[in-house]
């Protein structure tokens, strides 16, 4: 599914990713943990094509196709989704309008027929109910005046409605209380399937109690410095990142 080889990337003059390699097969959930400034968010932006994040060498492929030459919207249409650490507010554009526009833009790009308004509404209602969101919230401008937790739920709602194949969760757990964390995690788990993969970026083991990863990687100094099973997350929680940060 996702294959990163020796990826180097910089923001301005600063090199942040320094030879990152990672393979995430279809159907698997991988977690990336690491200290602040290790390059976790940079990785998510490099993958999704944010302007200003320049890849200087290495490759990134999704299902064998080169991601790096594609515009952000083209990557999205191929099924790449990023749940933002800090979701943006879009004044004047109701959430429903925003999501439906996105769904249909992606469908159009893939040469599929657009989703009709009634079908979309039906799905949106169901997803909102799953995430225990008040449907009226979807009629308000996207994320404007929403709490941190509400914004994160809205990200997962968008993810569910866009049904991407490769999902990146960038610190989705930050700003969520225990109940919200459980609901959001259930929403994410419902999307797990043999042909979908998930990259979970987090500081804390807590989220991984809910979204069980197949593999855990430690990102430090712009590279993957350790990989292991779910037990690695517990080890990190206990011992901290120090020894890995030194290794980097």
């Amino acid at each position, binding site marked *: 599914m996702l294959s990163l080889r020796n990826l180097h990337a910089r923001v301005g003059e600063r090199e942040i990713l320094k030879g990152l390699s990672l393979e995430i097969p279809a159907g698997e959930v991988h977690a990336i943990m690491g200290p602040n400034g290790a390059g976790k968010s940079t990785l998510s932006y490099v993958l*999704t094509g*944010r*302007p*200003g994040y320049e890849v200087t060498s290495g490759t990134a492929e999704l299902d064998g196709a080169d991601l790096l030459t594609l*515009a*952000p*919207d083209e990557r*999205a*249409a191929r099924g790449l*989704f*990023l749940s*933002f650490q800090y*979701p*943006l*507010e*879009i*004044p*004047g*554009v*109701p959430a429903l*309008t*925003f*999501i*439906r*526009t*996105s*769904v*249909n*833009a*992606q469908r159009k*790009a893939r040469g599929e027929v657009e989703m009709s308004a009634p079908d979309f509404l039906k799905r949106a209602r169901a997803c909102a109910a799953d995430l225990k969101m008040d449907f009226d919230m979807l*009629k308000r*401008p996207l994320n404007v005046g929403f709490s941190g937790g509400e914004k994160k739920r809205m990200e997962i709602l*968008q993810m569910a409605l*866009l049904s991407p194949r490769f999902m990146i969760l960038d610190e989705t757990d930050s700003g969520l209380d225990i109940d919200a964390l459980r609901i959001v995690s259930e929403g994410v788990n419902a999307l797990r399937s043999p042909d979908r993969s998930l990259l979970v970026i987090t500081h804390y083991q807590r989220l991984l109690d809910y979204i069980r990863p197949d593999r855990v990687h430690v990102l430090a100094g712009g590279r993957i410095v350790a990989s292991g099973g779910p037990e690695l997350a517990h080890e990190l929680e206990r011992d901290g990142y120090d020894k890995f940060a030194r290794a980097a």
Partner: protein
Amino acid sequence: MTAVKDTVEQVAGLEKYEHGFVTDIEQEFAPRGLNRDTVAFISAKKGEPDWMLAWRLEAFERWSAMESPDWARVSFPPIDYQDATYYAAPRTGGGPLSLDEVDPELLKTYEKLGIPLREQEVLAGVVGAPRYAVDAVFDSVSVVTTFKKELAEVGVIFCSMSEAVREHPELVRKYLGTVVPVTDNFFACLNSAVFSDGSFVYVPPGVRCPMELSTYFRINAAGSGQFERTLIIADKGAYVSYLEGCTAPMRDENQLHAAVVELILLEDAEIKYSTVQNWYPGDPETGKGGIYNFVTKRADCRGDRSRVSWTQVETGSAITWKYPSCVLRGRESVGEFYSIAITNGRQQADTGTKMIHLGEGTRSRIISKGISAGRSSNTYRGLVSAHPKAKGARNFTQCDSLLIGKACAAHTVPYIEARNGACTFEHEATTTRLSEDQLFYVQQRGLSEEEAVQLLVNGFVREVLQELPMEFAVEAQKLVAISLEGSVG
């Protein structure tokens, strides 16, 4: 919400300035230049009574002694007023005709512009035919006014200004120039001397006008200007919603459009006045050509509890100089101004409003959304004033500017004058650059950069678009999208 929903789909395939064509039709012109004879020529062409000619000539004398204003934040070379034609009319048109008498070439023009003149369809009950009355002004004359008969049945007069001068002189003499005096300003004074056509509306006491009224202004002839004059009177307890639209061919020369619009509201009357202005903006690269849109619009809320709202979507013109204003004379009268002003390429706009609170308990509301892109300049200029008698006056102003790109400019120039201690004025202003973060967020969800800009801009202007009559909101939204094409990247 419907207005915002379909933009992205609609925008694909629209041309940049799709109204830039010229209609090839035989026209007659006034001799080039401006003097007493020109004024007399126009008056004679329109078969006006002596009092009208005298009024015009008086205006001409006053104008001759005036100077062009220079306080606005716009710049243009001096206009040679002798090097223009002040009257241009299709040869067939001696005034509004019935639809079957109108030159088919003209009907084709309006069809191409998407303006429905086919009242027969509506009268015959054709499903989906738009039901609003149109006065179509082509250069200096009104070529047709639809639904006049249906409107007359409820007592509403809707006709061209020229016709009103001939047919309803008592109303015209009573109200013309009482809101915008002849010498109000340089361009209004020029208009008073040479005004050609425009619409006249009178809604009698207690009548709610049964359909939307609209005037569609088209400049076609080269080397001419358009000097429309519109007068709308809503008598006691009357209501009318009126919309004007404007387009012009693409030409290398600058053409002057100096209009005057006067609204009069008696007790408990209400007028909603909307404008979708899409004059040719000039070449985006060189700045060559385009319309100079120098317009004076004012509403006089004479009656208690009367209520007026101006909604404008300004996307075209090389230069816009325009401040639709409300004189809130009647007790508890209400004035509203909702504006979207978009400049791109090398356009310049200096636009806003004046809310003059004279009466007790008067209220006003200003929502202005300015968008500048390309190398354009966009200024909001507004005055809110309360006179000593306007106790309890309230105003809320919200003035937002959005910048797209790095070479454009936005300015906000609010003037506030409170001459009594019992009024409440609130002013909020924001200036933001279209955020890269937002753009990326939207693109990550699957929209192209251009679509992302359109979505964000539509969100930015939504509050104002909602004030437009439904039929025009979608049109206006398309226009917003087209105006900003090529503004990123």
